[in-house]
């Protein structure tokens, strides 16, 4: 009997929490509310958590400097757990319960596509910190913006860099379980073959793979090894894949996308990660980085007690500042005014490079940072704007067109 009443009391408390939380909503009305939608505890959290931290840091700095339009910014954060039904629910919560003026969030296209249409239907501006699929603006709508470059841009950059520095034959390995890795590999292949390069062997692995021996055996069976290896992988696969390739005696250059930008690669692969290259948004290096990076590095370390985990921290920070800048220029929190101000963003100085939305595009023109891993350290290989960018829609039959990508 005692246990039962205890359980009953506990349950009543839970229900009370659920109901009471809504009476506390909007105690302060003189703030500008921004929804922060990130996966804080699920499979994407190694990218989303730093991004969320970056956005929170930006809010803190903006508020310390007096806020925007004379008001403080209030970040409303909800964990989406990489659960798409919950992500849609959180989007409704931002729109309805929290009455946010804009939403910043996510580093993957699944989450953006689950939340985006709901935020779009409510006509609220939505900036993604790190979802890099260039198809997103056409899938979500005109209130949606990206703070990062598209995958076609980074894949074209790595194709051009590798073609010039490593050689003209490549091995292509991709995780076929995820949109990001599939698109990235496709864009790389398009641009590399257009340059005149040859993919000597193309192979795939399952997203939950931990053992790459089948793929490596096939690769080693080649009569001559290709000049380099493009491995399109998710953050959790990068370490094991690189380690196992190196252990099998494959020591040529391995190159990949911003999924490599995680501390895991060095902690798992150790010295095997030498001669690994990847494209990303910025080099998080306090010594060799640009001035904004040094400043961000110091502020982030002071706030959280450790260095930024990866470039997504900076992207979260940039997205928030980009939004605050647009609100400032719009002079109000009216959605259309913010959207117009965002569209007119030109040379906004972000940590991850200068951001310009040109010709009505919702994807910024940004330079790609290519990183080389040397002795377990990320070092800058090159900053690159690709000469030609592979078309965003891989199904389109058009030939790649030269795009006037911005100056870096």
């Amino acid at each position, binding site marked *: 009997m005692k246990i039962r009443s205890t359980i009953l009391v506990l349950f009543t408390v839970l229900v009370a929490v659920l109901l009471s939380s809504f009476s506390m909503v909007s105690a302060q009305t003189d703030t500008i509310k921004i929804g922060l939608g990130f996966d804080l505890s699920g499979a994407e959290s190694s990218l989303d958590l730093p991004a969320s931290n970056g956005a929170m840091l930006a809010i803190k700095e903006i508020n310390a400097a007096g806020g925007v339009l004379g008001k403080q910014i209030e970040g409303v954060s*909800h964990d989406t757990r990489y659960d798409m039904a919950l992500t849609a629910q959180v989007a409704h919560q931002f729109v309805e319960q929290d009455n946010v003026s804009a939403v910043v969030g996510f580093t993957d296209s699944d989450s953006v596509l689950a939340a985006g249409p709901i935020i779009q239907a409510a006509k609220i501006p939505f900036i993604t910190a790190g979802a890099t699929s260039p198809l997103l603006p056409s899938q979500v709508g005109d209130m949606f913006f990206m703070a990062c470059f598209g995958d076609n841009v980074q894949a074209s950059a790595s194709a051009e860099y590798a073609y010039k520095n490593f050689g003209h034959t490549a091995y292509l390995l991709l995780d076929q379980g995820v949109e990001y890795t599939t698109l990235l590999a496709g864009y790389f292949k398009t641009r590399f073959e257009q340059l005149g390069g040859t993919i000597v062997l193309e192979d795939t692995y399952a997203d939950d793979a931990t053992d790459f021996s089948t793929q490596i055996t096939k690769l080693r069976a080649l009569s001559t090894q290709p000049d380099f290896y493009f491995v399109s992988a998710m953050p959790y696969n990068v370490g094991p894949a690189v380690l196992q390739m190196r252990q099998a005696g494959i020591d040529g250059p391995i190159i990949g996308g911003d999924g490599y930008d995680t501390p895991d690669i060095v902690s798992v692969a150790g010295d095997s990660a030498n001669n690994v290259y990847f494209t990303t948004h910025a080099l998080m290096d306090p010594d060799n980085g640009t001035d904004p990076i040094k400043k961000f590095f110091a502020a982030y370390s002071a706030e959280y007690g450790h260095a930024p985990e990866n470039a997504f921290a900076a992207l979260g920070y940039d997205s928030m500042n980009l939004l605050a800048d647009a609100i400032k220029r719009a002079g109000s929190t009216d959605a259309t005014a913010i959207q117009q101000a965002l569209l007119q963003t030109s040379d906004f100085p972000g940590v991850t490079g200068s951001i310009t939305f040109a010709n009505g595009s919702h994807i910024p023109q940004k330079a790609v940072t290519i990183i080389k891993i040397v002795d377990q350290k990320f070092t800058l290989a090159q900053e690159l704007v690709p000469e030609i960018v592979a078309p965003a829609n891989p199904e389109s039959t058009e030939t790649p067109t030269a795009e006037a990508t911005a100056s870096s």
Partner: protein
Amino acid sequence: MAGRAQRNGTLIVLGALLIFLISLSLSGSNFWQSIVINLGMYIILVVSLNLSNGFTGVFSLGHIGFMALGAYISAILSLPLSQKALYLPHLPAWLAATHLDMMIGSFPLGFLLATLIAGLVVTGVALVVGLVLMRLSGTFVSLATLGFLVIVRIVLINANDFTRGSRTFSNVTQYTDLWWVYAWLLVAIYMVWRIKFSPYGRSMFAQREDTVAAQSVGIVIMRPRLFAFAVSAFFTAVVGALWAHYLTSFSPNAFYFDLAFSIITMMVVGGMGSITGSIIGPILITIISESMRRVEDLTQLYGITQIVLAVLFILVIIFRPGGLFGDREINFAAIWGRLRSGRGAGEPKPQNVE
């Protein structure tokens, strides 16, 4: 007398549900509706999973595979032609020209057809798969159905022309609302209820308790198992269709271990073999999960919900291995009797009493 109480009780619950749904839809709150819609879909999933796992004891871990198939099949059928040309340019001609968008007034008949076709195709798949798998029992069937889930995922990822592979399938029209979900929920519960209390249902329970004893008195094993598996696959596929036309975008990742195990948690907490438990389980988990979300937002301790749910699951396994309800169902006659005698007025669920 007991039969009348049961009928009246059912009518009262249905009436309360109707009033709740009407007031919810009048309130215009998409947020609360989204919680209740998700809950409704979970209940259908758990009720239909229970038909197979709870009633026949064939513990399937692969049902989410049926949901994935239901989602993809219905979405391909209902995708507008212009979107099809854009996102699925390599579909076979007959499929590329198919767009189920018939409307009767404002009623999307095309969506209903797409859902039914998806359900029936998946039932066919379940019959074929079940013919082999339902001969197994215990751990073997769990592993084999888990294998089925993995196979479905790999097929979806590789059937690029039909599914866009691993890329997100997006721009599905949103048809699913409260009424669609709860209409299907009532159909599912009614069907499963009728099956449970039919001779067929009794034979399911009999062979679950003791296969050899059941066989020795002439109860057929295979047919009821296959029947339960197929019917539960049908409703699971229907939820897939509802899910697809509610979220409007999804990828093969959405239908994998995470979802499979959260459904199983809800089923085990509610009670394997109880329809009432299959309804109470998801409600309980949803309330705990939503409340914990507020606690997380207030304390900034993200992730404790999963810990709380895991602890709850362990506690249920230890102290109530049969779940809250076991095999039992809600008994309105008993509640009525208790209320009349004035003893259990504060306890709406006397089933919990030992």
